[in-house]
């Protein structure tokens, strides 16, 4: 009778006759046999030959079987080397000692070849099972290390992309788990060339690498377009189209995108699928919710995507609190959710908005929920003009051509006024002139300001005095959207004229509109307080350029930059 798979077997037995007999039985079963005369020899032989199974006499000279079993098991380590004790002992206590010393089975003398063969087979099964379990464990461990390493590398790459902005700015406080990237949450912030701040809090469906893979292009679009001075609507369209193109149908990204403009004292909001964000007054009262009004990014085809945003007033010192659904969906042991009501209670109880962030975290802790790994919480204080760090504009050329004698007329009419924002393109164009590069932020601010003035007050005929308080503010932007939608004609024309001077050059920007114009003298003589949130940005434009003014009855604004 031969075994299916031959094993190497160590036989340790002090009686020469028994040893020979046993070795013969085992050999006949097809196994390879090593023999030892006492425990010490057995341990030495085990260390040398590493047999797969051991038959061990309990009572031997020099070192008995019990001690030998302990040492062999220690040498074997994690691998199962079955030990079958050979014994003429039959007191219960002695048999128990065999097993306690590490024996896996025992066999009474005299030996039966049939029973011995059966026991060896049974022990071999156990041995193999253990070997399989160990091999699988090692495989899983290897895969796990591999995965962790991949995540570490992916995170390092991602951090280069994601942290190129200003998420560490002093007015932002946030909490994200260190591996938030792999739970699908994403928080990005960056200054625009004119010193507005863009913030994005996103939450991809799904976890792990798929979420991280989607996050990369989103971050690229966010930083790239923010640095070039694009507004939220353009960025949203680009992000949505990109995600729609690359993500599978069942994956999308809930997102809340903000533009904080300290110049205008406003925050522009687009929320698609994120929980309500909150706008808080300087003394911590909830003044408004930033509610989700849109489908998440990556769901709708470009032609159905809605990029309309809301504009709310936000003065320096006022705050926004943003969160991911991990906060409201934190569950306690009874699977009850923390929920929006508990969150609102924390907001209502707050007396000092600086503490709010900690109070929310403490409330989550007290709630006793298992802390989820996908909680994102972000507290943003409206910054002051002094805190701005406008982004350096991205240059795509060396600037060597630097043309200094040219002019350009650019007119937008009807439909184009509804969708198109010409400012980023014009700023990019002006980057061709080396001497204007240090003025990028100012150019962006001035062009944005003059363009929106021409559109809103000129073409659409909106009165900026509407914006004097928070209520009027909302009305103003609703009315703006309504009139823009109904617009059929009208135009905004931008003329750029560049001429060389002895020392450098001069740029003259003229922005004309088809509106009714206004009484320049009268508006300029209004008290500053009345200009407040509105004021046609006169002061700003005047400060940024070398000189500025209005002509043609308020229908043409001009600014001159000398360098």
């Amino acid at each position: 009778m031969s075994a299916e798979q031959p094993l190497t077997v160590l036989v340790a037995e002090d009686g020469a006759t028994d040893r020979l007999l046993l070795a013969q039985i085992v050999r006949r079963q097809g196994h390879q046999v090593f023999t030892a005369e006492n425990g010490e020899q057995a341990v030495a032989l085990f260390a040398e030959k590493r047999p797969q199974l051991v038959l061990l006499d309990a009572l031997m000279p020099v070192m008995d079987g019990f001690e030998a079993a302990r040492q062999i098991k220690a040498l074997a380590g994690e691998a199962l080397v079955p030990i079958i004790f050979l014994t003429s002992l039959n007191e219960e206590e002695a048999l128990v000692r065999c097993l306690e010393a590490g024996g896996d089975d025992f066999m009474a003398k005299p030996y039966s070849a049939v029973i011995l063969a059966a026991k060896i087979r049974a022990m071999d099964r156990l041995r193999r099972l253990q070997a399989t379990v160990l091999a699988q464990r090692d495989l899983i461990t290897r895969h796990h290390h591999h995965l962790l390493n991949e995540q570490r590398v992916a995170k390092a790459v991602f951090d280069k992309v994601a942290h190129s902005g200003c998420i560490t700015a002093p007015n932002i406080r946030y909490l994200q788990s260190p591996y938030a990237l792999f739970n699908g949450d994403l928080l990005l912030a960056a200054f625009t060339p004119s010193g507005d701040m863009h913030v994005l809090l996103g939450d991809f469906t799904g976890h792990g690498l798929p979420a991280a893979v989607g996050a990369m292009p989103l971050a690229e679009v966010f930083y790239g377009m923010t640095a070039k001075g694009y507004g939220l609507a353009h960025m949203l369209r680009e992000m949505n189209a990109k995600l729609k193109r690359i993500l599978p149908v069942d994956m999308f990204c809930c997102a809340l995108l903000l533009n904080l403009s300290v110049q205008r004292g406003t925050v522009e909001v687009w929320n698609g699928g994120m929980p309500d964000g909150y706008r808080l007054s300087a003394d911590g009262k909830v003044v408004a919710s930033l509610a989700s009004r849109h489908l998440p990014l990556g769901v709708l085809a470009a032609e159905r995507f809605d990029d309309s945003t809301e504009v709310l007033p936000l003065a320096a010192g006022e705050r926004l609190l943003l969160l991911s659904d991990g906060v409201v969906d934190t569950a306690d042991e009874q699977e009850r959710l923390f929920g929006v009501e508990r969150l609102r209670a924390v907001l209502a109880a707050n007396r000092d908005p600086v503490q709010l962030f900690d109070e929310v975290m403490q409330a989550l802790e007290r709630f006793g929920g298992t802390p989820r790994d996908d909680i994102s919480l972000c507290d943003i204080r409206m910054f002051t003009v002094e805190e701005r760090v406008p982004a350096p504009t991205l240059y795509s050329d060396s600037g060597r051509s630097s043309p200094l004698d040219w002019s350009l007329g650019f007119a937008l009419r009807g439909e184009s006024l509804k969708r198109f924002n010409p400012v980023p393109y014009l700023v990019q164009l002006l980057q061709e002139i080396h001497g204007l590069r240090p003025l990028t932020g100012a150019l962006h601010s001035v062009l944005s300001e003059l363009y929106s003035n021409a559109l809103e007050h000129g073409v659409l005929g909106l009165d900026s005095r509407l914006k004097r308080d928070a209520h009027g503010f909302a009305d103003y932007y609703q009315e703006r959207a309504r009139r823009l939608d109904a617009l059929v004609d009208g135009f905004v024309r931008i003329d750029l004229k560049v001429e060389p001077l002895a020392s450098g050059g001069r740029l003259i920007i003229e922005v004309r509109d088809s509106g009714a114009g206004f009484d320049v003298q009268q508006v300029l003589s209004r008290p500053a307080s009345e200009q407040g949130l509105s004021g046609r940005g006169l002061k700003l434009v005047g400060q940024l350029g070398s000189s500025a003014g209005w002509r043609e009855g308020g229908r043409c604004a001009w600014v001159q930059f000398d360098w």
Partner: protein
Amino acid sequence: MAVETDFSQDGKKLTIKIKGRFDFGKHQEFRDAYESQPRRPDSVVVDLKDTTYLDSSALGMLLLLRDHAGGDDSDVRVVHASSDVRKILAISNFEKLFDIS
């Protein structure tokens, strides 16, 4: 079965009922519910009467179903959603894609 399907007599309307939590655990069952049908129904009704919870992967699955049923031309209705489930659908503004009642 946590996901049950029922074809109307005329074979035009497929009803899919989800019991308990509608999350990633139901992914395969939910896909099978509409992919394994011999013919494509004119309309699909997703009955959430016995659905206790719905997560973002369930929203993804609804998008898959919508895509399968013809995308923008599809007729997918979501019915009997509890107030909690409706809230989740509302935050993501899914009423813009599905007829929810």
